């Protein structure tokens, strides 16, 4: 009896101590995330309601004029360009990425699968600037395509410093993310379901459209939303391939604050970009949660 009583006490003590210990272990990461990250967003929100006083200062007040500025076509175009490039790149990346993800998920040979995976993963590891610059060498006037076109007499084809170049670079950057996000959901579809469809007389296309495609829909939605979120924030690729002519929101924010010293408008643009990214990534988690509940 006394042993049991002692045991109960010692467990309680242990549990209480464990709680304190766990709290201490969690603290450093929590402090870093709250003090350095979460709080750092506050001034940006506040400044977005301040008034810009040219050339470099701002007045502490409450105004929505920085947001209203984005109703003006010149500023609204930054949002539209951002949305257009992200959306186009997402669609093309899905179309390009899905078949590759499908075959990586379904390859039976361990070697081939490893090799394909290795290529995609190492692609992801290659520096963003290197990947954007690679397209400068490909699309440049004197690059392989440019010189080929020139030999046919087309000497004035401009493939760099335009929205096309930025979109191509963005697709290239997003593709590994899309493939990686799609592999899991496709892999988790039971292959015997497709076999069953085939045994019931469906051809490859029918088996795909009636079984694989609908079942991988959650993965497709998740990958698209992720790709959109990442696309919204593109900074390096538009800088390298846009030649300063294609300004997505991220480069607009950088130019306004660092070169224009207009912190209020830069902050408002930041809040807009943050809202776009948050709404879409919130959509991801909501959607995935809904799927899990349905299952």
């Amino acid at each position, binding site marked *: 009896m006394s042993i049991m009583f002692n045991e109960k006490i010692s467990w309680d003590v242990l549990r209480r101590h464990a709680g304190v210990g766990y709290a201490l272990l969690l603290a450093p990461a*929590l402090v*870093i995330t709250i003090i350095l990250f979460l709080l750092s967003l506050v001034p940006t929100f506040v400044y977005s309601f301040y008034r810009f006083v040219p050339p470099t200062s701002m007045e502490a007040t409450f105004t929505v004029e920085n947001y209203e500025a984005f109703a003006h076509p010149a500023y609204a175009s930054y949002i539209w360009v951002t949305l257009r490039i992200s959306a186009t790149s997402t669609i093309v990346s899905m179309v390009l990425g899905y078949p*590759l993800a499908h075959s990586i998920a379904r390859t039976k040979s361990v070697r081939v699968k490893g090799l394909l995976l290795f290529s995609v993963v190492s692609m992801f590891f290659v*520096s963003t600037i290197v990947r954007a610059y690679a397209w400068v060498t490909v699309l*440049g006037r004197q*690059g*392989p395509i440019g010189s080929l076109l020139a030999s046919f007499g087309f000497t004035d084809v401009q493939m760099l410093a335009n929205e096309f170049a930025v979109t191509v670079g963005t697709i290239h950057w997003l593709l590994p993310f899309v493939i990686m996000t799609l592999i899991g959901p496709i892999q988790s579809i039971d292959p015997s379901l497709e076999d069953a469809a085939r045994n019931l007389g469906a051809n*490859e296309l029918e088996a795909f459209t009636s079984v694989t495609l609908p079942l991988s829909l959650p993965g497709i939605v998740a990958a698209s939303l992720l790709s959109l*979120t990442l696309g919204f924030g593109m900074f390096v690729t538009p800088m390298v391939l846009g030649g300063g002519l294609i300004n997505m929101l991220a480069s607009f924010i950088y130019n306004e604050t660092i070169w224009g010293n207009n912190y209020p408008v830069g902050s408002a643009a930041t809040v807009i970009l943050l809202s776009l990214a948050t709404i879409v990534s919130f959509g991801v988690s909501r959607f995935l949660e809904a799927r899990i509940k349905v299952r």
Partner: protein
Amino acid sequence: MNRALSDLLSIIGKSLAKSIKVAAFVFMLVPILIAIYQSFLPTVAFEAFPKDGFTLRWFRILFQPEFLRAVGISLMIATLATGISLVCGIFAALVLARTNFKGRELVNMLFLSPIMIPPVVKGISFIFYFVIIGLRPGLTSLFLAHVVITLPYVIRVVYPCFYGLDRSLEDASRNLGANEFQTFLRVTLPLIKPGVLSGAIFGFIMSIDDVGVSIFLITPETVNLAVLLLTWSRSIADNTLAAISTALVLVTFAVSVLAEKLVGLDSILGGLRH
């Protein structure tokens, strides 16, 4: 639908999927190969067979002091930031995996939230915030910002490792007289080593590759590699950047091979999944 037509469509669809697969692969890899090829050409003009032969002169940039200093700063910041993130992140992941306190989901979401926020948003917020708390742009602010960049990746990669771990091994260690700390160091840590290594690789790469945050925090004396390359890509029109690309791709390739040998692709995949 007509059977014959459907079968025909199926065949077309299948070959279409196959060609898209090849196209995607070519699209991903060929530009990099062209940039590498370009680094050995004497001029920016692309020639399949250069009449003046290949050259190594663009690679001289790799020994230039400005470049080397930027590499040094990037490596130092990445090492320090990833180190701190590993220490804090492993413990945080352990608590998240082993306890079920109220608000656990919220804390988890908070830890991972910096990943989903565009780098430029973090960058501009850091300069405003650091001015308020009296921190000047420089190595310290760059380091702190990079801890925020690397920490979520470390937590995300290490966290799942604690679930696959056989806890009876830890109990055995305690029963044999080891205290909590010894058990963690000698049993738990070796068991989650693949996760820790991929967390380290991930954090390191994210830190080295970052431009969006760093560009707001650097000073002329503390330019890191990624920002220097962005500046050069806009100002230098010869094959210098191609040579640097070749060098970086070689390093990346070595890291990928090493990562695959050390931890396998599966645990790296955990970090890529959002």
